[in-house]
């Protein structure tokens, strides 16, 4: 059998992979996008909050297909329940709101529908998509190509590509294939659990609760989830607590200043995962290989948000691949380094800066002082007058 040949094989069809694949195909490349799942985005491991700007800058039009609820601002709380409300409908009433000519600041999306929509966009751009297709390994070959081994409905397939893109998320193995050190330190991976609940009121704001008492090393959240539902969750750093995320969530629901508000809540779904509050990988490329999204630890180290950064990283990777492959440049390690340089310039340096802020906060031993720093940083971060450019 003739081995199928592609310019690019993208492994993982989350926001990072589907966007990389779509943009690369729009540059005229022959692209294969594969995902081991049968239903993208499931089981859900994400709260789904993403800025409108994040979607639009990646060419994704907000749609009823995946939007669960529009978001207009933030409520940031300290451990005692004092708050900073940052409702953009009040800051800029002509720009943000529900009426004619006004827009939301962001959205909470259904990750199952969102990921499927991104995959469909890639497919419509000419990408060949294969579900139930797990990537098993890669091997660089002479003449600037590599062989990728895939398992599709139990059948092993080999394909040739110029570049394989690891967009395989938090538990990424693709980087490890090339010998990159990708594991996240226990001190930098927030262990998260969340419940989708009924009977908890929300008001179009993403609410964030800081404080060591509720979520050591991370924060708790209450997000609107559409249809009158909400999402209550938290992430903790396990080296800072003897309790697991589930136990902390139980305490937060039953004992925090929100306990009255949560008292009638009914759990509809249980979700969780790990959020890297870490620096981006120092090396995100190898011969015939590059990493994007969670696989490269492209996550905002202050907020833990990774959808916007995955989409943006996908755009950068797709455009870069188009330029080098069409120019006939060999995709060896040395030439693929330019992807990382570009990424650093466009967003990575900002992430490194945020990582420095985060490290400074959590290096503070005094809990009261640390709590105060986190509360103030979060409030500043989400303010319209923030010194941090939103990523």
């Amino acid at each position, binding site marked *: 059998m003739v081995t199928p040949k592609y310019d690019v094989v993208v492994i993982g069809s989350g926001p990072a992979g589907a966007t990389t694949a779509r943009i690369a195909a729009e540059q005229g490349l022959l692209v294969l996008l594969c995902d081991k799942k049968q239903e993208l985005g499931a089981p859900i491991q994400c709260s789904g909050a993403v800025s409108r700007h994040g979607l639009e800058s990646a060419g994704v039009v907000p749609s009823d297909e995946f939007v669960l609820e529009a978001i207009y601002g933030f409520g940031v709380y300290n451990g005692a329940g004092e708050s900073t409300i940052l409702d953009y409908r009040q800051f800029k009433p002509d720009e943000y709101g529900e009426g004619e000519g006004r827009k939301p600041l962001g959205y909470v999306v259904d990750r199952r529908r969102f990921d499927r929509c991104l995959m469909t966009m890639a497919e419509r751009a000419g990408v060949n998509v294969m579900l139930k297709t797990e990537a098993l390994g890669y091997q660089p070959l002479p003449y600037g190509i590599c062989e990728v081994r895939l398992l599709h409905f139990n059948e092993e397939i080999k394909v040739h590509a110029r570049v394989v893109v690891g967009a395989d998320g938090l538990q990424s193995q693709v980087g490890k*294939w090339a010998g990159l050190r990708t*594991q996240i330190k226990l001190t930098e991976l927030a*262990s998260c*659990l969340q419940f989708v609940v009924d009977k908890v009121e929300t008001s179009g704001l993403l609410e964030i609760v800081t404080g060591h008492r509720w979520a050591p090393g991370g924060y708790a959240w209450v997000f609107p989830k559409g249809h009158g539902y909400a999402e209550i969750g938290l992430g903790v750093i396990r080296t800072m607590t003897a309790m697991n995320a589930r136990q902390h969530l139980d305490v937060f629901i039953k004992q925090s200043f929100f306990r009255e508000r949560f008292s009638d809540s009914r759990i509809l779904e249980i979700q969780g995962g790990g959020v890297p509050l870490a620096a981006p990988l120092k090396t995100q490329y190898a011969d015939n290989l590059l990493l994007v999204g969670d696989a490269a630890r492209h996550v905002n180290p202050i907020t833990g948000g990774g959808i916007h950064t995955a989409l943006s990283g996908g755009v950068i990777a797709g455009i870069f691949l188009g330029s080098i492959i069409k120019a006939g440049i060999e995709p060896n390690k040395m030439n693929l380094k330019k992807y990382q340089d570009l990424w650093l310039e466009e967003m990575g340096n900002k992430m490194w800066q945020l990582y420095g802020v985060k490290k400074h906060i959590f290096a503070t031993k005094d809990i009261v002082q640390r709590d105060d720093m986190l509360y103030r940083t979060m409030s500043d971060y989400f303010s319209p007058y923030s010194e941090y450019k939103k990523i």
Partner: protein
Amino acid sequence: MKPPVIFQIGWNACINCGACVAVCPQEAGFISDFDTIAVNRPCDIACMVCEDICPVSTITHYIESAFDNSNFGAFSPKFYNHDN
């Protein structure tokens, strides 16, 4: 050097989140079909951070030497949680 360990996952509680894999320093492929660390072979690193990160504490282990193949009938491994 720590003795190699074999992991057991309480699948009823596991939410397939992959956090245990993300902190694991093992080489590529030390994973199960359910996005967890491998359960069908020993881990010789035994750093135990996979147990620590699990949001629902559903990973336990036993020390591989406690498993005596030659005397399977008498085998009764003691499962540990890292907190034990």
